[in-house]
């Protein structure tokens, strides 16, 4: 997950990458970055209930792919509550 490293230890390149990842992910899902972070944390907690994983070692990436026929109208059919 994010924020596991001390901010002062991170180079601006790493900060840029983390910011890009979060921005891109929230764009793709059409939800705010806070919502996305909360969702990632909840998914991580849920997985940790069933799997033996160290939270700091992993990252949750959420990608929703529609099964419907491709087309501009189908890009954002899934709404974040």
């Amino acid at each position, binding site marked *: 997950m994010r924020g596991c490293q001390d901010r002062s230890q991170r*180079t601006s*390149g*790493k900060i840029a990458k983390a910011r890009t990842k979060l921005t891109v992910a929230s764009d793709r899902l059409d939800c705010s970055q806070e919502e996305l972070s909360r969702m990632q944390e909840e998914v991580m907690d849920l997985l940790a209930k069933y799997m033996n994983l160290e939270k700091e070692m992993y990252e949750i990436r959420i990608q929703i792919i529609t099964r419907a026929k491709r087309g501009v109208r189908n890009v954002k059919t899934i709404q974040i509550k």
Partner: protein
Amino acid sequence: MSEVIVVTSGKGGVGKTTSTANIGAGLARMNKKVVLVDTDIGLRNLDVVMGLENRIIYNLVDVVEGNCRVKQALIKDKHYPGLYLLPSAQTRDKSAVSPEQMIKLVEGLTELFDYVILDCPAGIEQGFRNATAAAQRAIVVTTPEVSAIRDADRIIGLLEAGGLKKIDLVVNRIRVDMVKRGEMMSVEDVLDILAVNLLGAVPDEESVVVAANHGESVVGSDTLSGQAYLNIARRIAGETVPLLDLEAGASLLHRVAALFRRK
């Protein structure tokens, strides 16, 4: 069999037009017949980047509206016999052309050329829809910046949604010294975020600016960026070319400086 490629980015100023001109020159250097189409109606740029701004008589809108034949609007490049430009109109706007008209125009060009390369305007509005409507494959240009990558991701999403299957990435303006210091995202970082095939990485060099000042391409010059663009052109043509070692170009001075900075 000719190929129609759109060069796009979403964000402006990342080097779409420069990349279009250099990729075109690279392919022409390989003796391919290439036409570069400036689809940015109202903000024409490709002509000046190629140094052909004084030779324009007819433009893309003239062809679409039937004021001239397509061959009359084509401008021959100064250096490469197989390279042509179809300039955009400066005094019109994006609504002057529809996607259907663009498809028809491009169809005509495919009969004359091996490669039809469309220089797409920034943004995701009609200009983008016009340029992408006729394309079979896309080259997405980005720089290692948060804003450019974000827009590139959006563009890739739109292209995929539009049914385009072949989408490649060019990472432009890499500064090896800054990547080494950790002050810039590396090509690998960009690829980690944008899951598309890498067509090539182009270093940020003064030579690109100098060449553009003269209205010339860097392809063919003894520079890393020139080599990078030539490699991109070869990959487009289907050759397997190993990725360029961008560090080889960092001057001794840079390397020594980087050595000190690392402490």
